[in-house]
């Protein structure tokens, strides 16, 4: 079953525009994350933009289509709570990068007061954390039936 055959979502115009623009939005989010050390932006803003790209898809194509892609693209062994798992991994990675950064600074010597690679990794992990978290909140608020509405 192709994703276009799901009933949900908006009109064909919206779907076409969404298909054309979502890659650009995603690319812009990655750019904002990776460019955070040099220009305004960074992990938080870039993560929100990435979450917005996925929300864009969800609104245009309906949540059934997105769930179809989600089930096919993310392995089952990660478990039911895939976005929280991703967030946990990102948090752990951020903590590890942060601790490594601190250890380098503590050891002193030739370590500079900042390490661009570690900061870039921190931006990346914060971005994954924020993107997965905000998209999860959106899916939880829009995708799951809210109490009292289940009978409708």
């Amino acid at each position: 079953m192709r994703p276009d055959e799901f009933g949900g979502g908006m009109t064909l115009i919206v779907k076409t525009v969404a298909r054309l623009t979502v890659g650009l939005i995603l690319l812009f989010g990655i750019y904002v994350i990776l460019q955070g050390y040099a220009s305004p932006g960074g992990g938080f803003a870039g993560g929100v933009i990435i979450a917005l790209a996925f929300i864009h898809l969800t609104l245009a194509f309906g949540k059934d289509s997105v769930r179809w892609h989600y089930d096919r693209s993310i392995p089952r062994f990660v478990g039911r709570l895939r976005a929280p798992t991703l967030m946990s991994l990102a948090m752990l990675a951020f903590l590890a990068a942060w601790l490594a950064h601190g250890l380098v600074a503590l050891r002193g010597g030739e370590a500079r007061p900042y390490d661009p690679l570690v900061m870039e990794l921190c931006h990346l992990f914060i971005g994954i954390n924020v993107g997965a978290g905000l998209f999860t909140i959106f899916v939880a608020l829009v995708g799951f039936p809210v109490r009292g509405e289940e009978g409708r």
Partner: protein
Amino acid sequence: MIELYILLLFMIAAAVIAVEIRDLLSAVVAVGAVGLALSVAFLVLKAPDLAITQLVVEIICLIILIRATVTRDRVAARGGAALAVGAAACAFVVLFLALARGPFAALPPFGAPLFRTAELYVEAGARGESEPNLVSTIILNWRAYDTLGEATVLFTAVIGVLALLRRHGRKGAAAEEETE
């Protein structure tokens, strides 16, 4: 600095409209106007990092609010008490401003903060002990504890939302409600 005051007045007006208007969708649009003006205010104050973050967070909040409110009708809560509530609010604002005159006068002027920490950051950046983006260096180097706490707060909030809104594992609670 006059443009900042114009933006602040616009934000206050939009906030009042958002509270008072009857249509929920229009209220959400008014809230979005407040957020957009705040983003522009950050730009006026030369804080592009904050402006970008404010803009994208505002967009995501608006999407969630619209999805949450567009299908719902507003419960009309208009009554004869509205005038009394308005009068009480005005009286409270007047009282607050009268009492807060002294503390406001004691505050340091705008742009000259009491703590000198920011000057140290700027000086270190001028000496080259910083990435090209000073803000990024502040949040990931000098204030790394704050950033770690922020990421933890977001993580905890998402886990909390999932725990409250999850679809599975609530049959027991639903059955209890039916029996009550």
